[in-house]
């Protein structure tokens, strides 16, 4: 695989857009301005960025409760996403969904999701629709290690295998389901090995190495588009923050473990590697970073300026409109 400076900068931009978006969101949330609760993706950006780099707006993604990064990487507008999480009517879903219910048909984003594992069979369904349409679209399902012991994982992936659907299943294994260590709840912590159970390829990848994810996801997506069926990719990664904003994330994880994973920060690793090899100059990264800072600030301002919801709209959209 050829790694061009443009590719490096593009993956860097994608990761920084997520990182800076999440950190800005965290500030606003901590100020008390934002209702509900949020699960931040900081530390895991390489997965969304590396996979979504291969997807067009016609492809589909299902996501999770920790899904802001997937939404942004898939092309949901940053300002509209910020506003949605803030509960504003100018949000992508009018503020009716919030953090765990972000949907955008304009870019095939089939939703973040409050139910662990639920997006897995839904991605198989999007793959089924793609197969019927025959236009070469693929579906990607992101989920965590917490989803892989759920029947939705088993049933959704088995179905995709049986029907050779164009789907890529991407497990973000961050080692903890909320606070429960993965190795306490399964005798098989090798998620990639579970592909064999469904007769599909299962690949383990360093989830903090965006170039490696980009390479592996590219092959899997190509297989899916080519009618060769689904792939399961396990990305070993880690969330720098707590399970939700407000959870310090330290009661069940040692300081050493957290520090060790921060050493492997996906953004810093990409930058260091590219500068050391001479592929990209530091000033180029800084240029992108400034642009992203401006974009995030604009998204924040857009969301902040939004009006509050009109209670008169509460009963809208329960049922699809009647056809004429």
């Amino acid at each position, binding site marked *: 695989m050829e790694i061009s400076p443009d590719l490096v900068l593009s993956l860097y931009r994608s990761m920084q857009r997520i990182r800076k978006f999440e950190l800005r969101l965290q500030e606003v949330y901590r100020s008390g301005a934002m209702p509900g609760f949020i699960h931040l993706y900081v530390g895991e950006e390489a997965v969304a960025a590396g996979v979504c780099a291969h997807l067009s707006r016609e492809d589909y993604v299902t996501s999770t409760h920790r899904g802001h990064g997937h939404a942004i990487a898939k092309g949901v507008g940053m300002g509209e996403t910020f506003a949605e999480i803030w509960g504003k009517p100018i949000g992508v879903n009018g503020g009716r969904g919030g953090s765990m219910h972000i949907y955008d048909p304009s870019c095939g984003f089939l939703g973040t999701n409050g*139910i662990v594992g639920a997006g897995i*069979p839904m991605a198989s*369904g999007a793959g089924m629709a793609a197969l019927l349409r025959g236009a070469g679209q693929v579906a990607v399902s992101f989920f965590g290690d917490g989803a892989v012991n759920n029947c939705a994982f088993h049933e959704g992936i088995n179905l995709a295998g049986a029907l050779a659907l164009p789907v890529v299943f991407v497990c973000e294994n961050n080692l903890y389901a909320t606070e429960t260590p993965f190795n306490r709840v399964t005798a098989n912590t090798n998620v990639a090995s579970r592909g064999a159970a469904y007769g599909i390829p299962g690949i383990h990848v360093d989830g903090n190495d965006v170039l490696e994810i980009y390479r592996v996801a590219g092959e899997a997506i190509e297989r899916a588009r080519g009618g060769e069926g689904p792939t399961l990719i396990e990305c070993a990664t880690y969330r720098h923050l707590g399970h939700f904003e407000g959870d310090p994330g330290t009661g069940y994880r040692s300081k050493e473990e957290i520090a060790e994973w921060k050493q492997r920060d996906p953004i810093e690793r990409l930058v260091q590697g590219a500068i050391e090899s001479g592929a990209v100059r530091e000033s180029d990264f800084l240029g992108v970073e400034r642009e992203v800072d401006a974009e995030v600030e604009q998204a924040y301002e857009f969301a902040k300026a939004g009006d509050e919801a009109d209670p008169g709209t509460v009963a809208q959209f329960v049922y699809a409109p009647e056809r004429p």
Partner: protein
Amino acid sequence: MMETREISYVDAGVEALQEEMRRDASIFYVGQGIGKRGGNFKQSRSLWEEFGDLRVRDMPISELGQVGMGVGAAMAGARPIVDIVFLDMVMEAMGQIVEQAATIHYTSNGKFQVPLVVRAAMGSVRCTGPHHSRCFYSWFAHIPGLKVVLPASAKDVKGLMKTAIRDDGPVIFIEHKFFYNKKGPVPSGEYAIPFGQANVCRKGKDVTILAMSLMVWHAVEAAARLEQEGISVEVIDPRTIVPFDEETLLESVRKTGRLLIVDEAQEFCGFSGEAAAIVSSKAFDDLDAPIRRLCALNTPHPFNPILEAAMLPSVDSIVDAVRRLVAS
């Protein structure tokens, strides 16, 4: 009047599927044993031969997976019909139905539609015990976003299935196993039956019976017997409980002043209670007697035929309940 022929309930359903699938290539049909086998009840007979393996596909026994697949496919522009065969097994898929299918149009601010039909058969037929008999339809009616259909005749199953497939939201389509081989007049030409329009199966002036699914048949038979005793019974089949045609029921009760609700599901927290609440809040002054309910007893379904008969409403118990209601 449109010309009709006598065909079975199950064949009428198949006709609806054939006609719709010919009309719209985005419709596909999945379920366990619905392919070459044609369905446990022959409810998908001949579809696989006509539409092929891509559009009519046998599924593993993965109820949640199938419905989840239906939700995703519907969001991605297809029109899936997921046949779970037995309503009891739909319980395995409840998360996808309630949390995803029913909710996504609302939470997406109307941006995504989920045109999904979940099809299943309910009811006790020939002592099938607690895992193949239940009538869980009230559960779905409780969830905003779902439409709930209970066809009680061959004509209705075809006309309502067409409307279900054309609806742009999720529809829970619940047939009754008792009906599948029962024949009835079905129009020869194209027709669809809109949701939310009750069927007044029999006109009467002394008592109104509101009944769903198989209980409609029992109520009509009970009404014929009661007529010989000089009691005139009006039987109303709502056909869909979401949306529910309140007006037809209220109009009838305003005329008769007496209401019996017959339900094959349990009484406690069931749809019968909802219907009673609607009538008592909107037509209280027209009632000449308290609303009565005749429902399944609050027990699981026993296998033993004597116990099962003791648990479910029957023509005899409906006749008896009407007599008591008229005397009160």
